[in-house]
């Protein structure tokens, strides 16, 4: 049988085609040293899930590079201030490496609290602070006592694992251990929920929140998009958790179920069909006739609002192929949305997927779809060259690999320009996909001088 693409022998099993054999790629293995991996570190994973907490300072305890390359990278929007966007670092120096960085960390926390009076200070451990053995937990405890501000250790040494998902979990643990359950809500209702794994990238949350509130539901907190730490502190009183990014946040939802008995359901607000299903799932959970009625009304008016609005885009997009190569969740959550546009998902893959993620992908995609795990830049280029999809959905590092090949690209990560969630989001989604796929500039890439 012809291999999917040429690559290292050990990497071949990381790619498969649904419908042939077991249809699950080998995954969750360390990247081969010496390859240009698209993966990041555990610190990056932790930072990305906690950073959207907007009233907090995110302090990186390490040399300057760890903060300097990551302080503004998440496109999470805030409705209340931009404290979370500050790039804070202890800027560890040689002297600190030799004598330890605990004192510097302590002084920095005290100083940042004095300057900003934040809702919390999250302190992230990095490779170096881990190796030199700084006890960031002890420093956080001591500075919390002195300042009265929440100072929360995040044990996210970068080298801990090859998979940044470990970082998502560590970020979740920081919330479970130090935040959730530390404050009681002023009032509770029978319909209190948390939105878990929604990071408000490009304002996605704002396309979902009004729909849910209109159903008569009270949102206690969002983990973590556009949130304040005191709201997350009350999350233990919810009657239900709804999980949007299941890749990063099933972990937290499961742990909250175990610790507080809060059940969770998986939702997906990308695409009309998925939005409708998710709203119904939430209403069905509460089994409140009034809410069910309201929900159907919301669905009717939501669908009506976007009716025919995407027709023009669909005409151009019909039958076009798309390849997904994303962090995790979007490898399955976007599939139906593309199908609703009449597009054909021919490849889906993730950088950090674990077995349950690939099972999810396998369930969602149709036979013949290529499924890839942790493709490095060479492999990605080969896949694109060989199968030439009409569109690649991926992140910033992959963007120019695709564009240099003349393959249209759409950013679904942090550099996204518009919100895609909910009914209105679907319209923006269709518009942006069309803007990428149908632009005439890609025709020019196929024409040379004199032909």
């Amino acid at each position: 049988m012809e291999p999917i693409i040429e690559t290292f022998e050990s990497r071949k099993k990381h790619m498969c085609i649904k419908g042939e054999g077991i249809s699950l790629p080998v995954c969750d293995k360390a990247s081969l040293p010496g390859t240009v991996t698209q993966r990041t570190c555990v610190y990056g994973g932790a930072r990305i899930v906690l950073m959207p907490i907007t009233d907090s300072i995110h302090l990186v305890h390490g040399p300057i590079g760890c903060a300097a390359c990551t302080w503004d990278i998440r496109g999470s929007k805030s409705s209340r201030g931009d404290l979370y966007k500050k790039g804070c670092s202890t800027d560890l120096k040689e002297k600190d490496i030799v004598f330890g960085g605990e004192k510097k960390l302590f002084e920095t926390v005290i100083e940042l609290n004095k300057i900003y009076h934040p809702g919390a200070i999250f302190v992230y451990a990095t490779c170096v602070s881990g190796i030199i053995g700084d006890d960031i937990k002890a420093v956080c405890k001591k500075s919390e006592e002195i300042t009265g501000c929440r100072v929360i250790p995040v044990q996210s040494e970068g080298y801990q694992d090859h998979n940044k998902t470990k970082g998502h979990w560590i970020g979740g643990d920081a919330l479970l251990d130090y935040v959730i359950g530390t404050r009681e809500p002023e009032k509770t209702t029978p319909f209190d929920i948390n939105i878990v794994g929604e990071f408000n990238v490009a304002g996605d949350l704002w396309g979902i929140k009004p729909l849910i509130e209109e159903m008569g539901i009270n949102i206690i907190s969002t983990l973590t998009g556009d949130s304040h730490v005191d709201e997350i502190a009350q999350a233990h009183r919810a009657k239900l958790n709804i999980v949007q990014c299941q890749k990063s946040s099933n972990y937290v939802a499961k742990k909250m179920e175990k610790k507080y008995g809060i059940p969770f359901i998986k939702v997906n607000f990308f695409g009309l069909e998925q939005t409708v299903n998710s709203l119904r799932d939430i209403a069905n959970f509460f089994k409140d006739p009034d809410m069910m009625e309201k929900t159907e009304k919301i669905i009717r008016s939501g669908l009506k609002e976007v009716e025919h609005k995407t027709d023009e885009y669909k005409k151009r997009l019909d039958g076009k192929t798309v390849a997904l190569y994303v962090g995790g969740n979007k490898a399955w959550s976007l599939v139906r949305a593309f199908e609703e546009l009449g597009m054909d998902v021919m490849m889906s893959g993730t950088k950090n997927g674990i077995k349950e993620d690939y099972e999810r992908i396998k369930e969602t995609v149709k036979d013949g779809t290529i499924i890839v795990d942790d493709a490095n830049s060479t492999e990605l280029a080969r896949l694109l060259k060989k199968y030439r999809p009409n569109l690649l959905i991926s992140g910033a590092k992959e963007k120019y690999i695709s564009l240099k090949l003349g393959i249209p690209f759409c950013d679904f990560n942090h550099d996204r320009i518009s919100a895609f969630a909910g009914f209105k989001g679907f319209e923006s989604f269709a518009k942006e996909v069309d803007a990428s796929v149908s632009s005439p500039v890609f025709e020019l890439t196929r024409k040379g001088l004199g032909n």
Partner: protein
Amino acid sequence: MHQNKKFSVINPSKMCQPMGAVQALLGVNDTMPLIHGSQGCGTYMRFQLTRHFREPIEVASTSMSEKTVIYGGEFNLMKALKNVTEKQSPSIIAVTSSCLTETIGEDMEGIIEKFKEANLDQDLPIIIPISTPSYVESHVEGYNRTIKALVEHLAVKSVGNEKINIITGNISPADVREVKNILSDLNCENIILTDTSKNLDAPLSESALDLYKDGTTIEEIEDTANSLGTIALSKHMDSAAIYLEKQFGVKSISGPLPLGIENTDKFIGSVCKLGELEVPETIKRDRGRLIDAMVDAHSYNYHRKVAIFGDPDFVSGMTRFTCEMGMIPSVVCTGTKSKRFIEDIQIISDEKKVSPVILAGGDLYDMHREIKEVGADILVGNSYGASMAKEEDIPLFRVGFPIFDRLGAQRIFTLGYKGGINFVDQLTNTMLDYYYDEAGYEVSGDESEETIFEGYFAGEEV
């Protein structure tokens, strides 16, 4: 909100050494940078570089993990060297360390020797280790060490070549191109360390995904030992020049970055002196045009306050240039702690009778605090200045690294007389957009026409 601070860095204006190393290596032909460290280092740097240059950027990682941190990274580094050799087979593998591998005390040179011994029968790439601990100084030093390492490993004395070596420092591909154009106008053969002009501003083509076919070649780096002299455009990146002087008697000149009239004059002077060359008419004409542009623009810029941040030599060069234009530098900031920077600014201050607040080793929080104190009409620096500019309601003129919120960072062009013309025109137009109305009249705060009209009509109604 803006208090003095002592311990924390808030909104950094510098990056770490491995980043500088990668920036330097992107101008070398057929070379694979390999970061010996955690995956995140390579990935986040590629993220920064790729969104700035809007080109695919290849940086391999040894992908260190918990186990390798405990037992040492020898296995990972050996395996990485093997994989890169087999798959990309570049001419050079440049291995940079990271804070992680420096702290656990990895013997990179020893491991590389072992790898070479184990593969004696094979045709291996040249492997160059570069020590770039992230907790020492900044990306500026990382760049400096990398050029030095390249020269140390490769430069060989043979026959004199009548060329001049130029260490560009971290400047845009368009600026590298301009430096090359100036040298070509002067009829001066040259070796550029390192030449990013084609690699990081590539036409749309599949070949942009391969290792660079352009950029400084091994043969050129070998030949640097035979040149007439080396000019380091950045004073903070002159270690290779000093090495070549000591080792091979190649004369070394440090700075200045050719920004504006006086610094470009100095640069042209240095080249002419080293190469015993005459200044041609074309260059004199370009110089005259820059002066013409500055005269055309003077009334809009005179005594406008400018705040500048970025790499040390860029900031000092820009401080001088804006003074030449009649502007007043009010705050000048670099993330690198540098005495040379402070000295340079003091010399300019004395000469030009200005007294900017000097921040060496400062961050953008400090800079913002000082701007609030002494004021600024325009901010010159990278995209990280955007929120500060917005808050102060002043324009941000984007130059430096990284620029991710505007297109064309690879083509921003400020060096030499021609780059100067481009800068003066664009900066002045930014001023015109911001501070003057459509008829060309200055809009001055409260007395804007709108308020006058509003008041007038309101009065009439009563």
